[in-house]
C-alpha cells in the first residue's frame, strides 16, 4: 500500500532521513515512535508529499509519486496534525465540506450528507454549526479526523495526534482511532501513546537519528526488543 525505498532527506545540511525503507500493507496499522528529531514526522510527511524526498522513491497504492512544491497532493492520503489545523474562519460543517466540494467536486447535498454522517460517527454532530475556537482540543481533533475521512482516503496518517491535548481528552481521540483501525483502515500514526500502540497497532516501528532501528509486532517489540537502542527507549518510557 505504502512503500518508501531508500529515502534520504536533509534540511539545509542536516540529514533527517538516512536511507529509510518503510512498507505498509493494506489494512495494516503501524505505530511510529522514537525520540524527537528522529525523523518520524518527516517520514510521515514524505508519504503524502508535504515534504519532498531528496533521494529514493515513494510509492502509494502502486503508483510511484513525484511531488512538487506547488502541485496538489493526493486527497486519498488523509492527514491529521498535532495542532489540529482546523480552518478558523469556517464552521465545523464547512471545515468538513470544503475538501469534498473543492477537490472532489462533490455536490452540495452529497458533501453535506457525508459530513453529517462522519460528525455523528466521531460523536460531535451537535457542534456542526459552531466555530473551531469554541470547541475543546479533543473535540477539535475529532473534527480534524472527520475532515480527513470526508475525502474517502485509503491511508490515514496521524502526526502525534494527541500530543497537544490535555490528558482527559486523549482517550476520546484514541477511541476514534481505534474504531477506524477496527474498520480496516490503513493507518500510520506517529505517537507517544504506547498503550494504544500495543493494543491497536499491527506493527511498531522505532526510529532514531533518521533510520529505522527496529520494526516488530507489539508483543515482540515490547517483550523481546532486538536492538540496544530500542531497549533503552522502551526502558525510558515504560517507567511512566
Amino acid at each position, binding site marked *: 500500500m505504502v512503500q518508501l525505498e531508500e529515502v534520504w532527506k536533509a534540511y539545509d545540511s542536516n540529514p533527517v532521513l538516512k536511507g529509510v525503507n518503510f512498507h505498509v500493507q493494506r489494512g495494516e496499522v503501524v505505530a511510529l515512535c522514537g525520540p524527537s528529531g528522529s525523523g518520524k514526522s518527516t517520514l510521515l510527511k514524505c508519504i*503524502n508529499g508535504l515534504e519532498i524526498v531528496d533521494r529514493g522513491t515513494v510509492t502509494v497504492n502502486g503508483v510511484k509519486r513525484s511531488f512538487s512544491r506547488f*502541485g496538489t*497532493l493526493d486527497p486519498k492520503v488523509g492527514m491529521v*496534525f498535532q495542532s489540529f*489545523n482546523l480552518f478558523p474562519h469556517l464552521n465545523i460543517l464547512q471545515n468538513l*465540506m470544503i*475538501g469534498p466540494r473543492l477537490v472532489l467536486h462533490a455536490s452540495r447535498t452529497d458533501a453535506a450528507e457525508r459530513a453529517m454522517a462522519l460528525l455523528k460517527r466521531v460523536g460531535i454532530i451537535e457542534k456542526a454549526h459552531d466555530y473551531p475556537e469554541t470547541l475543546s482540543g479533543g473535540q477539535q481533533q475529532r473534527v480534524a479526523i472527520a475532515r480527513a475521512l470526508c475525502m474517502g482516503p485509503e491511508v490515514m496518517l496521524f502526526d502525534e495526534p494527541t500530543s497537544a491535548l490535555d490528558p482527559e481528552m486523549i482517550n476520546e481521540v484514541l477511541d476514534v482511532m481505534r474504531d477506524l483501525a477496527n474498520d480496516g483502515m490503513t493507518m500510520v500514526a506517529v505517537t507517544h501513546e504506547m498503550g494504544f500502540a500495543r493494543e491497536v497497532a499491527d506493527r511498531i516501528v522505532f526510529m532514531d537519528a533518521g533510520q529505522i532501528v527496529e520494526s516488530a509486532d507489539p508483543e515482540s517489540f515490547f517483550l523481546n526488543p532486538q536492538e540496544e537502542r530500542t531497549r533503552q527507549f522502551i526502558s525510558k518510557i515504560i517507567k511512566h
Partner: protein
Amino acid sequence: MTGFDLGALDRTAYVLILQGLLMTCKLAAASLFWAALVGVIVGTIRWSKLPAISQLCLAYIELARNTPPLVQILFWYFSASVVLPEWAFMRLRNAGYEFSAAVVALSLYHGAFIAEVFRAGLNAIGRGQYDAARALGMNFWQMMTRIVTPQVGRLIAPPMVNEAVALVKSTSLALAIGVAELTYEYKQIDNFMFRGVEALVVVTALYLVLCLILSQLGRLLSNRLAARHTAIIEVTA
C-alpha cells in the same frame, strides 16, 4: 493683503478646488488599485521564497522604499520614454501623460509597502493552515482564495488602510509634473487670485476630511472582518 475672508473666494476658485479634489480622488483610486495588485503579487512571491525571482522582488522593494516618492515621480515622468518599450509609452501618452506617470510612480512606490504588509500577513497565518489545506488535496489557487485570503484579510486591514491614507497624501506630490490635483489648484489660486491663505485653509480642511473618512471606513471594515467569521464559501446546505 486685506484681512482673511473666506467669502472672498469667488465661484471660480471653488470650481478649481472641486476639480482639484476630483483629480486627487481619481489619482488616488487608480494608484491604489495598481498598488494593491502589485503589492499582493510581489508580496506572495517574496513569501514563497522562490529563488531568483524573489530576490528580484526584494531589490525592487528596497529600491522603491528607500528613495523619495517625489524623485520616483520625476523619474517616471522624464525617463519613461527612454525606459519603457514603445507600445507601453504610447499607451501612457494616450491616457494623459502626467496622470499616467504619476499613477505608475505612486503604484510602484506604495506597492512596495503593501507587498511587505502582505508578506507579513501570509507569514502570520500558522504553517499548519497551509499543510492542512494541501493535505486535503487543494491546489495553490484554491488554498490561496478559500483559506488564506479570508484569514489574511483580517490581519492586514489596518496597515492597508494606513497605506491608503498615505497614498492619498502622496498624490499632492503629483503637482511637480503638472497633474491638476488639489494642491496644484491651491497654487493656481494663490498665484492668480492672491487669496492664498483662504484657499490653503479650504484645501487643508478637504484633505483632513478625506483622510479621516478613509481611516474611519477602514476601521469599520477591520471591525466587521474581526467580529464575524465570514465564510466566503457557500458550502452549507
